[in-house]
């Protein structure tokens, strides 16, 4: 057997995103995802809101008004800032959904991506609660869980995922995860050297994000992660579940002692 190809992933750069949502559209189109209904949220230009079972790319619009004292004096000086970034399944190095899945429907592909096999998923909904990013969701009309596939059907034919292909500014880069991490670090160094010290990487390594052991879809952002609805310190639940099993073992032992003990005491009480 051949060695698997190196892990593939995304590097999504908020400083290059223009908020055009071409990624959202390309994803819907390629994956033939139904529309979510039109609604006006009033949340900047974001009428998508969140990732979901039929939304596998979501452009977040972080809109902040600049406090008056920090605004420039010249007429027409900007009064607000925008930071956009296209959110997606992180294809975690250690994936909570995959480890929680009771049927083995969620697998790690040869591309290192996390994939829900629709012909196996029985819609138990456990992955939905196991994901610390709120990515996986169950389709109510269908009953199964869905999320980004990293365009598995395109990777098979050496095509890049639809979102990266469609991105007009290369804010979404697709490639080998090792290359993407190097690219992200280079980009960060450059931004910092230009004085944009607010720029930071998200999920680029196991050291920076031990709870997931690093992401295969990493980000460069300019605001704190919570403002993009990214958790500051995501932890895959299976990392902490040992404590629960230990506690269960103790309690179960207690139950055994109690069951036997109460029968014994009931007998003893009689003899007295």
């Amino acid at each position, binding site marked *: 057997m051949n060695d698997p190809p190196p892990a593939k992933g995304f590097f999504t750069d908020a400083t290059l995103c223009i908020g055009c949502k071409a990624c959202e559209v390309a994803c819907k189109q390629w994956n033939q995802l139904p529309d979510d209904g039109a609604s006006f949220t009033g949340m900047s230009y974001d009428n998508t809101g969140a990732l979901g079972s039929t939304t596998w790319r979501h452009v977040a619009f972080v809109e902040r008004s600049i406090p008056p004292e920090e605004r420039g004096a010249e007429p027409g000086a900007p009064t607000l800032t925008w930071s956009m970034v296209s959110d997606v399944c992180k294809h975690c190095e250690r994936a909570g959904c995959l480890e929680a899945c009771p049927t083995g429907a969620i697998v790690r592909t040869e591309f290192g991506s996390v994939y829900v096999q629709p012909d196996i998923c029985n819609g*138990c909904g456990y992955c939905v609660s196991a994901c610390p990013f709120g990515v996986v969701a169950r389709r109510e009309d269908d009953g199964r869980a869905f999320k980004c596939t990293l365009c598995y059907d395109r990777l098979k034919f050496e095509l890049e995922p639809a979102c990266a292909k469609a991105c007009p500014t290369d804010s979404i880069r697709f490639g080998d995860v090792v290359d993407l991490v190097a690219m992200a670090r280079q980009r960060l160094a450059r931004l910092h050297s230009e004085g944009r010290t607010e720029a930071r990487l998200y999920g680029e390594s196991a050291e920076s994000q031990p709870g997931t052991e690093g992401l295969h879809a990493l980000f460069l952002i300019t605001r704190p992660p919570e403002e993009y609805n990214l958790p500051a310190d995501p*932890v895959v639940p299976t990392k902490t579940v040992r404590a629960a099993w230990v506690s269960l073992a103790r*309690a179960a032992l207690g139950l055994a002692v109690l069951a036997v003990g109460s029968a014994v005491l009931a007998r003893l009480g*009689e003899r007295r």
Partner: protein
Amino acid sequence: MIRRGAAKGTRFSAERRGTYYGLPLLKEPVWGPAIPTYFYLGGVAGAAAALGAAGQLVGGASFRRMVIRARRVAAVAAAVGAVLLIVDLGKPRRFLYMMRVFRPTSPMNLGTWVVAATGTASGLAALLGRTRAGDAAGIAAGLAGLPMAGYTAVLVSNTAVPAWNEARRSLPLLFIASAAASAASLFDALFDMSAREARSVRIFGVAAKRGELAAARRLERDLERAGESTARPLHEGRSARLWRGARNMTAASLAASLLWGGGRRGRLVSGLLGTAGAMLLRFAVIEIGKASARDPRAASRSTGA
């Protein structure tokens, strides 16, 4: 993909700061009322199986009726529980896919095997009666019943939902204690028993209800320690009302069994209160999880430690 009103009320308030327009970060657990009902029945099945096995080991012939009843209760509760689990699936016809793998990383997968083992063993034990094979099945059911009584606590702890995850140390104690209280309450409410059997169930039930109340306090402390937003579902909204209701019912049931003693009427009242408390507790825990998942401030501050 916005659910209408998701950020209602928080959109322009200070609550919104440090969040994405106050929208939930996590997806809300998708489980319907079948699941907390199953949590209750699974607890009953596990604790009843354990009670049956203990009566068998200790009592010889003297716990005869209790042992048979415990086996029947365990078998019926496990069977009905399994049906509820299947009904809640998005693709119910694929329920057997749970058993196409053995997956130690998934408490739900392990739980499926435990339910199957408890249900099968207690069903066999009930059918075979007090024969050698029946007693062997009874012991097997008792052993499988121990994890059965509380694995669902591990299942919900193993999620990214802050309140559930932070309760991972106390929740298994709470569920096991409550499972024992549920089984005792059901016996109290349903069955006439010999004096010895009633005394044994009473000792079991009183200790279990005390344990349930103590574990509930411990869970509250665990969530308070994790932070204000993690503990909020205990104090606000539907989840808080359910949680308080569960505790009050269990406390009332405990008081009834202590004050009213072992009379038929006292046992009936205490049994009904205890059953209500244990049921409410499961619904409260599910509701606490849903409220916790909706709160982006609880979710963004994941702990792990």
